[in-house]
């Protein structure tokens, strides 16, 4: 019974310690190089359909009065 409790204690401690985990990976910066996440908008903006959408929007809302 005592061994059973000790085992449970070890499992509970392991679970608690997992919550304290911190990534040790370090971002090493190179001058002028962006190393953040890739913005999904970048790929979207390269599409001609998206560019045309923005041009249409411009004609719709930015026309002179």
């Amino acid at each position, binding site marked *: 019974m005592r061994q059973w409790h000790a085992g449970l204690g070890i499992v509970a401690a392991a679970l608690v310690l997992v919550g304290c985990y911190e990534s040790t990976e370090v*971002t090493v*910066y*190179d*001058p*002028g*190089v*962006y*190393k*953040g*996440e*890739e*913005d*999904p*908008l*970048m790929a*979207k*903006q*390269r599409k001609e359909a*998206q*560019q045309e*959408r*923005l*041009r249409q*929007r*411009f004609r719709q*809302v*930015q*026309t*002179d*009065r």
Partner: protein
Amino acid sequence: MARMKFLCDAERCIECNACVTACKNENEVPWGVNRRRVVTLKDGEPGEKSISVACMHCTDAPCAAVCPVDCFYTTDDGIVLHDKDLCIGCGYCFYACPFGAPQFPEEKAFGMRGKMDKCTFCAGGPDPDNSEAEFKKYGANRIAEGKLPACAEMCATKALLAGDGDMIADIYRQRVIRRSGRPQTWGWQKAYGESI
């Protein structure tokens, strides 16, 4: 590929501050931070002019040049954006920017500044488009939805234009021709003299 730009026509701006309000409302900008503001020159005197100023999304952005952690990136159509997860809030970009665009919210006690905040051309940041995380950190991503920045779309007199630089230049050229055929860019006479 378009080159996204802002242009404020000083002859049309009536200092209504609708652009400022639209920006704050659309992006839920925190108290104390103004991504866009209206600057008035010669206030109350003859020749008074107002211009709406925010990040100008420079081609060779000085903020990006001085950033020690390189948190800036530029989209193919020239929108200068930054990653708040990389930003360390050092303030170098604030000193480098000639327009005073980078802003720093007071987040902690003793006026300690948080991560830099600036106009994103309503294009959000590197988080998934129109996600809650993106909105919380950067505000709305209207560009991903095929819309243009709220400030320019809201401008009642169409003084503030945002979009492809070529299309904006066409509109502005037509306006100048209609007015008098002379360049009316703010600062033109100061730079080139009254006679030109």
